[in-house]
């Protein structure tokens, strides 16, 4: 249905797809614009030193998170790498909690213990945010293993129904060179696990273009095929195309419990992280891709269906307000109490520290603190504004 410019600025007519209801398409536009605005504000906050550590923004790749996650159900588990704000927001994480996590505040999705690269959200079945390149793929395969085990061992014994959940596990093109990813693909193929491994192929791992680091860089799905996984290429700059292509795959995996690999073609518009001057690629190349900006592409598609400039401005105004208030909410969220340092190490409240390294804070003497007096039920998500 759609006629959209692709990365080369040319208009490509997509195979006939059913039309996405206007309200749904508009909600995607809003989500993508929210992510864009959120990331711009992150960059600003990073410059202002309100966000520390490494911070990787998702600008340019918004259609991937929005289109793929729209094709899932809320109960389908998701796991990704460190460029994870977009996935978190697309999965429904409250922008306040996402921003507060980066600000290192107790209102963050992980109480300020994970940071930008480690976004976790149990309520939304987001299993991280993982900082080690490739490490999340064995985990994602394990999530799929568990859902299948639940259906075929636990529920089968109880004569219960099948949940047939499908896991999405995201990685970058550079991560494809990690051994653990290949081990995981072999296991997924071997055990018939219901997982879609989505390679967000933005052409670069930091400053290394795919051809400099990866064999078969022009056709990476060849690698998955060696593990008995079907490989599919999807245009990740077009959210509607991404959605339909992914919907097909998600339905298929739900029915067959066979893993699939996706070569998701996309481009990151900004540097790898905040400190990357992008000397390894040309301005011309960047401009070429910017013409295929996924937000612009969707906007153009929706204008053909009657989206007005006023409506667009209204969305823009609304996401700006949302993100602005997320920043304020994060700023007002308290920093974690020092006692949080020792919480969540083990399931028991204070954990079994080795006797000799027991933290002073937990011991006797001057620094003694009365644990019973500490409120462990801080409502970290209570609205502060």
């Amino acid at each position, binding site marked *: 249905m759609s006629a959209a410019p692709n990365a080369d600025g040319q208009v490509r007519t997509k195979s006939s797809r059913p039309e996405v209801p206007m309200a749904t398409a508009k909600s995607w536009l809003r989500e993508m614009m929210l992510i864009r605005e959120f990331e711009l504000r992150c960059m600003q906050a990073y410059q202002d030193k309100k966000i520390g550590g490494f911070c990787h923004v998702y600008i340019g790749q918004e259609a991937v998170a929005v289109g793929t996650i729209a094709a899932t159900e809320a109960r389908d*588990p998701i*796991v990704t790498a460190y460029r994870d704000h977009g996935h978190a927001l697309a999965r429904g994480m409250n922008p306040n909690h996402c921003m507060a996590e980066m600000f290192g505040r107790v209102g*963050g*999705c*992980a*109480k*300020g*213990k*994970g940071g930008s690269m*480690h976004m*976790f*959200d*149990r309520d939304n079945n987001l*299993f*991280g945010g*993982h900082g*080690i390149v490739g*490490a999340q*793929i*064995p*985990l*994602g*395969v*394990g*999530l*799929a*293993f*568990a*859902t299948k*085990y*639940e259906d*075929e*061992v*636990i529920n089968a*014994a109880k004569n219960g129904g099948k949940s047939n959940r499908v896991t999405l596990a995201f990685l970058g093109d550079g991560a494809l060179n990690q*051994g*653990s990813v*290949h*081990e*995981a693909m*072999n*296991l997924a193929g*071997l*055990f018939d696990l219901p997982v879609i491994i989505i390679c967000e192929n933005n052409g670069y791992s930091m400053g290394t273009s795919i051809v400099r680091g990866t064999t078969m860089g022009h056709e990476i799905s060849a690698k998955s095929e060696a593990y008995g996984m079907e490989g599919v290429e999807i245009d990740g700059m077009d959210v509607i195309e991404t959605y339909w292509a992914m919907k097909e795959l998600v339905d298929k995996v739900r029915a067959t419990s066979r893993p699939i690999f996706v070569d998701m073609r996309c481009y990151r518009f900004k540097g790898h992280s905040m400190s990357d001057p992008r000397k390894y690629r040309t301005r011309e190349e960047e401009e070429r891709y910017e013409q295929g900006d996924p937000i612009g592409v969707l906007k153009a598609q929706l204008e053909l269906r009657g989206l007005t400039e006023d409506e667009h401005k209204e969305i823009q105004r609304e996401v700006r307000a949302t993100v602005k208030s997320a920043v304020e909410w994060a700023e007002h969220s308290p920093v974690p109490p020092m006692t949080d340092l020792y*919480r*969540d*190490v*083990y*399931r028991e409240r204070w*954990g*079994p*520290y*080795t*006797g*000799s*390294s*027991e933290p002073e804070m937990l011991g006797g003497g001057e620094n003694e603190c009365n644990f019973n007096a500490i409120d462990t039920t801080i409502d*970290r998500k209570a609205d502060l504004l």
Partner: protein
Amino acid sequence: MSIASMREIEFRDAVREAMSEEMRRDMRVMLMGEEVAQYNGAYKVSRGMLDEFGPRRVIDTPISESGFAGMAIGAAMMGLRPIVEFMSWSFSLVAADPILNNAPKMLYMSGGQFGCPIVFRGNNGAGGQLGSTHSWSIEGLFSNVPGMKMVIPSNPYDAKGLMKTAIRDDDPVFFLESERLLSMRGEVPEEEYLIPFGQARIARAGKDCTIVSFGRMVNVCLEVAIELEKEGISCEILDMRTIRPLDAASIIRSVKRTGACVVVDQSWSFGSPGSEVAALVHRECFDDLDNYVHRVHSADVPAPYAYGLEQEYLPNARRIAEAVRSCLYRS
């Protein structure tokens, strides 16, 4: 415990009984690893489990430690309670990232949202002339990481009771067996029992010197104590059973009575459970000690292959006895 309910079984049977009993009582528990199913386990620990539980719960994996350890961790985040067998802990090094960087940190990094109820188990320590790559005692290296628990049983009874506790524990547990102990026979009751973590066992009571040890080395210490008794030296041997958590109170109590402490730990000395115990005792029992804490470790070299070298490399009866005498100024 009634005599009738006691029987002697091997260490490997004790571990298997614990796993099988827990798998019967909890469908979320499953076993995976190389050769655990059809081959019945490289060391026959899982013998017969495939027949009882079937291939969906006793799962042969490829030689892919990083992949299947990570997969099991993902499954644990979802709520399963996997037991992962490493044929040897020496082979777990290729899975260092998932087992050290994911499992013990997941709960913390997710702000308490995702725990990791998983048991990693396998043979640890020198098996017998396997050379340097296959003779790891990983307790020194791995116990450094907060968020994990480490269990090192010295006999079949403890192995069973601790394994059952490990499987029911909500945190990641590193369970270190010893190839050299797998055929050890010991009394294990028919009735169910669990052994809590963080509670040392007094393997032998004594009054002159406290020997702190764990795992296979406890058995060597017991032999040494019998010899030293003939010299009029009475040793108290503490079998720690778990390294994390470490039962500091039992160590302190004993050393305050004996005034002397020797640690026997088969990992390397630099940054080890042994050095941790020494630091603890020096801090807590400073005024009670008649001598500094003596430590017996594997020699600070890669594990050698040649029989004689390996025997000298490991903490052995002679070196332990020398350390006790020296600590008591009897040498």
